[in-house]
């Protein structure tokens, strides 16, 4: 088991290097730092001095890959590539355009993101499984058929509509909760309820439909027939046998998401004014703060790969047939 985990982590390294090279070429090779400076300072009427000053403030005034002017190892380390890209491996994200330390911001903004994303994830899965079980119980009846149609309808509605509609209906018309904002401690709850509910409703359509197909796949297996032949009630079959066996495909989809919960949800956070990583990213994209976007891309990939490893480990926990040596 331990050896397997070590091997998986070693496999992850080339992929992270690939991600790193990809972001480096996107941000520095497609456009030179000069281009970025011109973009930020306004394309017209910009002086060479202004560009140089902009570059120097952000440490972009060095060669990209190889510094011929420096001596020894510094020829490789005193470059944009080393300073901006390689340092990401040490989770040293550098500073944003406004001078704030990105690493510090991330550690601060992580908690509001989690406060939103974890309830959505857990309650969402429970709701989806319950609804999917209901559909599987009434399979091939009108309840099932129209339930699936309802899922498709829910899936076809834009996430923006859920958010805007929910904010309008509950926040503005009914005045039940504040429309947006955030607070620390327990008083944050009244700000969190609406986004969490909207996040769950937004995911119900796709989620339950997917779980339903998983359950239906299991329901046609031989062991289910045996269970019925033993005289178990349909409910007992569903909960004791089908649900247990369906956990494996459910885990594939669910566990991989857990680490990325840190990243938060772009749309919900930005609409509800929650100071999490999602709104951090969206603000960075809007302000074209490339340092933050680069950091988030790298962080996102690390978390995703971590999620993949977690998925494999969780297999061994739920399915004794799978061994990872």
């Amino acid at each position, binding site marked *: 088991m331990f050896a397997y985990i070590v091997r998986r982590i070693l496999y992850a390294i080339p992929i992270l290097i*690939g991600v790193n090279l990809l972001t480096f070429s996107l941000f520095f090779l497609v456009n030179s730092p000069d281009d970025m400076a011109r973009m930020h300072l306004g394309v017209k009427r910009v002086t060479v001095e202004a560009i140089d000053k902009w570059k120097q403030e952000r440490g972009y005034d060095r060669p990209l890959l190889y510094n011929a002017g420096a001596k020894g190892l510094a020829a490789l380390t005193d470059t944009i590539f080393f300073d901006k890209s390689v340092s990401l491996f040490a989770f040293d994200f550098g500073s944003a355009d406004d001078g704030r330390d990105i690493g510090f911001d991330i550690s601060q903004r992580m908690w509001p993101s989690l406060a939103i994303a974890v309830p959505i994830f857990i309650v969402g899965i429970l709701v989806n499984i319950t609804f999917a079980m209901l559909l599987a119980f009434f399979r091939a009846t009108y309840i099932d058929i129209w339930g699936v149609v309802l899922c498709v309808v829910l899936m076809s509605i834009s996430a*923006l509509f859920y958010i805007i509609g929910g904010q309008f209906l509950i926040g503005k018309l009914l005045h039940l909760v504040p429309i947006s904002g955030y607070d620390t401690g327990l008083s944050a709850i009244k700000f969190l309820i609406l986004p969490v509910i909207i996040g769950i409703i937004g995911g119900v359509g796709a989620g339950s439909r997917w779980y339903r197909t998983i359950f239906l796949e299991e329901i046609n297996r031989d062991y289910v027939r045996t269970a019925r032949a033993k005289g178990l009630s349909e409910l007992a079959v569903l909960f004791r046998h089908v649900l247990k066996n369906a956990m494996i495909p459910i885990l594939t989809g669910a566990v991989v998401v857990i680490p990325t919960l840190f990243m938060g949800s772009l749309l919900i956070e930005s609409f509800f004014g929650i100071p999490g990583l999602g709104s951090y990213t969206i603000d960075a*994209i809007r302000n074209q703060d490339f340092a933050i*976007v680069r950091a988030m891309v790298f962080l996102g990939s690390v978390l995703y790969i971590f999620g993949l490893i977690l998925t494999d480990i969780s297999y061994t926990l739920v399915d004794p047939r799978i061994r990872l040596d």
Partner: protein
Amino acid sequence: MKKFWFLPLLLVCGMTALLVLLPGLLGVKPVVLWTDRFIYLLVVAVIFLTAYIRHKPHLRLPWRHVLNNRRALVAVVILCAYVCIGLLDSIHYRQPLQGGNAHNGEKLYSVEVFSVLDTLLSHLRERTEKTYSAPFAYQLYAKETLSASDGSQYRDYPRLKYGAAHLQDPAGQRGQDILFKALLGAGQGLIIFAVFMLVMLAYLARRQLLSLKHAWRHCRHNDSMAGLRVALFTLAVLIILSSAIWKLSFFYHVFGTDKVGQDVLYLALKSIRTGLVIGTLTTMIMLPFAILLGIMAGYFRGWVDDLIQYIYTTLSSVPGILLIAAAVLSIQVYMANHPELFESVRDQADLKLLALCVVLGITSWTGLCRLLRGETLKLREMDYIQAATAFGVGHFTIIGRHLLPNVLHIVLIMVVLDFSGLVLAEAVLSYVGVGVDPSTISWGNMINGARLELAREPIVWWSLVAAFVFMFTLVLAANLFSDAVRDAFDPRLSMRGKA
């Protein structure tokens, strides 16, 4: 043997001739944007594929299955309506300027690029108000200082320039007038549909050697015509509804007007093309890569497989929206620094749309590639592939003749599944700020512009609702259609993590 490609070739040649000759006759200058080129290519491909599928019984069978599904049929009719509007919006031209014969007898054309749809909807496009107005309103949304006939000034909601301008006493007459015009339009729609129905019955009667009356009875009662009845019913509803709206749109702003006074119905209709372009061109651009790399990885295995797997694992480990954002940001910087590459603003917006499709394609090809690799790994061990190898058939012939046709159902299912997700993604991306150009009319931009106006009192809800309704109809139709396609082509294919 009948050649399957003869008729489609004739059709394509005819269409090309029409597109080339007609502008000359009408005295306009055709303009072909980059996205247009891809759309034309797609249309030609679809025409030939349809003919090919009709020609082969084993390919025709699953499609017949799709069309036996009533929900799918309704969806197909609605999708066709959207596609028609999108295609009309993809034929662009520039109008000649009045008295434009300049010094050397050269004809001058206006800088504005219009599409056929623009011309059809010119009554919507040209009649702009000053600012917001509600659907069917006769007054502007905001109060203004007006001067009465005796010279005194007062503040009130001014009458609209065009909306309900034909009424003397709009407050009293409006409801009646709307009802009357809507009924009139619906009646006209009914007549159009009846004519269409008659033509179709006549065709049916001729083909089956029946009298018109018997054809009608056959259509109404025969079980084999159940699908046709559903399709015709949908079509009837669609025609009557749009005819009523069309009639009303000459007198009112049916969906209101937006901040700068543009008719929201016009914006919503223009957005259809953007949505369709993103939904179709994205998959079309990524398809060759996904198919080629996926099959190659599965077929050659070894280092080719390792390399291709490495590429798609790396790409798919970056969270989708962040990769898109990073790429689009880079492209934005590039475009801002190289303005000389584009002839006009329109050109730049169009290329940005195309670039967005490419970026979306790059982020979305990995899923398909992975599926194709898995399927090819399975297929290459089949006896017929082994036999082909034993006979000394070359690698690429095996790929082209034996592997490709056997994985195409996966490709089809993925393409149809991806479509609706891409249409929805456009709106989200526009909100994030990495979507289409702000000057491109799209549902995302409409929503983005109208979102903040919900805080106003009274609220401005109509552009949001219009954008959502149009987008929802398209996505729902696409989802229902893709369900039917999936069931027909591979009922047991489990789309894990995709559903």
